[in-house]
């Protein structure tokens, strides 16, 4: 028996970063907003406090903060010819759950993408010719430009208080920053975090090769900060428990520290936790949403009518929400027709391990999630790809975030997996190794997509999302190229032994890589190749907005969250100043 509730102006599915931002702005503008969060309420006190929060087994290994995969996993296969099977344990990527969403357990790495990234298809063809791209790639422009997003990047960085060093302010190159970055209107709100020894060694090596090291932009703050919402953050103390953990110190910018207290104080907003949204409801025309149906924590079913529906769940869950709601045509890789689930992409991660002598004391456990040093010389299109046979690149950096030993105990190639030699190698190298990360782009390809699984279901009886993915040849070529550059840097750092591990196929869900799942509800100018328009409004159902990294037509060389924050403010601007004043299509199809 479904209980029908009183209609509200806006219903938001998922109260993570995006949901919190949208809800805050629309509630402040006077609209009645309901936020439906499937997980539980949690706050810095008491949930995020020590001693419990510094428990590697519970949070790192057992994934305590993640989406409940016993009820709601995904299925996976490398190729369409295989049978997808459930990801029975999270390993490769880790979607969060609960108030604040995945951002609670993020590392705080807060990058902007470059102007080139938003017009990747056009600019790649212009610079390298129409035949440059591999035939399987389906990369495309975003439908929004960097210049349009710049004010929103700026606003987002000042919301978070991001600690960094500008490299380009209004066209003026700034010493110590990233000379490759697209122009920003002003510097970061707070200066960079202190540089750890790994970063200093990397800086020296990279500089000796003529590259341009910069401090990682970090939303674990270098100093106390009060954001424009009036909320205060503390200085990060480099405890080494960021990613997969919540911050006990109010030093990491997450919804709980930068926005939720303001949102929850607004009587126009109502938070409901434990609510699993089953679908967005459409009227008989299938062109208009009437609200959502959800099941609460004790199993009761409700219909929440609303004039406007925002789905702001984690990227892969946004795809599934549209598929379960029959919004947009599902993608068919055989014909290339359809849009929902199309251009699912990821991130192509490689590593270079640099092993030093035992008199070089690294102290890997002293770090924040974003206190590293990196170069962008081989990211994006910052280097000439002529003759290389691939598009994209990677940032290369000493960006290791921790020394938590269950997961971090590097050993040189050839070391056995166990026994006396393994133990001796672990003891010998733990405190004398610098791991370089090569954080590579992920190009959308025709054969990679997401749809509904025909067999496996969630705890509510609904089909799981099925992910079909393997690394395109383009990305494997990229990984090999940048890893060779990383090895050169490792040698220039003075390491005794350097071991490069370029990402190789097939993609596996058994090994953590990143939680940067992108695409599947991509934005664009053409309804035949995108799910939402440039304002993140669903082409087919104009009173549904879909916001997430699922909007990215392909994934760039950097972590996605900075761009997601900018896109969210961009969409909020369109909602407040365009859509809500005159509801309807913001772009004609």
């Amino acid at each position, binding site marked *: 028996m479904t209980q029908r509730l009183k209609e509200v102006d806006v219903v938001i599915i998922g109260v993570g970063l995006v949901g919190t931002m949208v809800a805050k702005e629309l509630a402040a503008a006077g609209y009645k907003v309901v936020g439906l969060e499937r997980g539980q309420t949690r706050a810095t006190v008491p949930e995020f406090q020590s001693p419990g929060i510094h428990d590697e*087994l519970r949070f790192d290994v057992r994934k305590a903060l993640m989406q409940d995969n016993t009820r709601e996993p995904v299925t996976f296969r490398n190729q369409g010819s295989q049978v997808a099977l*459930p990801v029975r344990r999270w390993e490769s990527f880790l979607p969060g759950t609960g108030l604040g969403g995945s951002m609670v357990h993020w590392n705080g790495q807060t990058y902007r993408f470059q102007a080139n990234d938003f017009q990747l298809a056009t600019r790649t063809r212009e610079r390298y010719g129409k035949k440059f791209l591999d035939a399987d790639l389906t990369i495309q422009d975003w439908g929004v430009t960097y210049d349009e997003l710049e004010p929103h990047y700026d606003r987002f960085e000042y919301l978070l208080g991001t600690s960094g060093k500008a490299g380009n302010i209004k066209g003026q190159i700034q010493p110590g920053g990233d000379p490759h970055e697209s122009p920003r209107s002003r510097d970061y709100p707070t200066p960079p975090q202190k540089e750890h020894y790994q970063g200093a060694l990397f800086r020296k090596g990279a500089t000796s090769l003529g590259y341009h090291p910069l401090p990682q932009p970090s939303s674990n703050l270098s100093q106390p900060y009060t954001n424009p919402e009036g909320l205060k953050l503390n200085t990060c103390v480099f405890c080494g428990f960021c990613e997969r953990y919540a911050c006990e110190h109010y030093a990491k910018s997450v919804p709980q520290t930068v926005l939720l207290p303001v949102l929850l104080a607004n009587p126009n907003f109502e938070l409901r936790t434990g609510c699993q949204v089953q679908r967005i409801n459409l009227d008989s025309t299938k062109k208009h949403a009437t609200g959502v149906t959800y099941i609460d924590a004790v199993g009761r079913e409700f219909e929440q009518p609303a004039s406007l529906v925002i789905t702001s769940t984690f990227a892969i869950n946004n795809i599934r929400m549209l598929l379960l709601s029959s919004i947009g045509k599902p993608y068919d890789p055989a014909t290339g027709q359809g849009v929902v689930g199309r251009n699912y992409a990821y991130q192509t991660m490689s590593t270079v391990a640099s092993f030093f002598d035992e008199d070089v004391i690294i102290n890997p456990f002293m770090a924040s999630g974003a206190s590293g040093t990196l170069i962008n010389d081989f990211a994006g299109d910052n280097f000439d790809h002529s003759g290389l046979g691939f598009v994209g690149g990677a940032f290369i950096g000493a960006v290791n975030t921790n020394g938590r*030993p269950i997961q971090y105990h590097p050993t040189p190639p050839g070391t056995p997996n166990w*026994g006396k030699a393994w133990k001796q190698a672990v003891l010998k190298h733990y405190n004398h190794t610098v791991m370089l990360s090569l954080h590579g782009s992920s190009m959308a390809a025709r054969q990679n997509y997401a749809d509904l699984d025909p067999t*496996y279901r969630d705890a509510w009886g609904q089909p799981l999302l099925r992910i079909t993915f393997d690394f395109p040849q383009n990305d494997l070529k990229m990984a090999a190229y940048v890893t060779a550059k990383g090895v050169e840097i490792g040698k220039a750092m003075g390491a005794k032994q350097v071991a490069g591990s370029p990402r190789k196929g097939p993609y596996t869900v058994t090994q953590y890589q990143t939680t940067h799942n992108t695409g599947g509800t991509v934005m664009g100018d053409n309804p035949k190749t995108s799910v939402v328009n440039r304002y993140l409004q669903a082409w087919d159902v104009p009173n549904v907005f879909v916001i997430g990294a699922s909007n990215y037509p392909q994934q760039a060389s950097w972590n996605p969250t900075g761009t997601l924050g900018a896109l969210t403010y961009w969409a909020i601007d369109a909602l407040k100043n365009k859509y809500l004043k005159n509801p309807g299509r913001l772009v004609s199809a």
Partner: protein
Amino acid sequence: MKKVTRRSFVTTVGAASLVSTAALLDSAEAAEAVEPSSIEAPGIATPDVSVADRPTYLFFNSAEVLFVEAACERLIPADENGAGALGAGVPNYLDKQLGGAWGAGERLYRSGPWALGTATQGYQLPFTPAELFHSCLRAIDQQLAEKGTRFHEMNDDAQDAYLKSLESDGHNLDGVPSGIFFDILLKMSVEGFFADPAYGGNKDMVAWRMIGFPGAYADYYEAIDKHGVKFEREPMSLAEDARGHVHMSPDIPAHL
């Protein structure tokens, strides 16, 4: 006070019902938590329970313990640098994990249909970890008994060779490829070696001391830019940090 062995302690208690049942717990942690004076009864010697020579196995049966203790010690052996798996309490960690929520399938999606799939699709067996261990350990013991030498009776080299054969899928353990079981055994052994002592392994933070990991200690603000300087400090376990310290700032709202 008079020192007694655990065996004699149990005997003594058996004759006197006044002793708190808490004193019967013989894990090292529980033993240390008991204040001797609080359980002292007239006429009964207070036992010294600080020496817990072996864990109390709640999950593994007596045959399984023989394999698990011997195998873990070959995976992470004691050497001149310090304790191995046995000294660090790794089998105790495995026992407590497998006997609890993890063993019962915590965080494991358990709906069929079942297929082994490709290596890239990860673990696909219907077994919970507890079921997998019981099933595979029984198969190992039977297979080795038929050949005449059980694992714990082998010398070190033979044990290593057998473990390698498990690792390389050399055995069918009642339908389970032995590499799947070996991978979980190794992964859990590494967990037990390096996890916080609260979970029953890494006894006295012995593994952390060997590598120089400070544990739950969490403030390196002053140390981080003193490059190349060894961080000399006793490691800290979660238990030591349990002092009710909550991070509050007068001008930051703590609760939502």
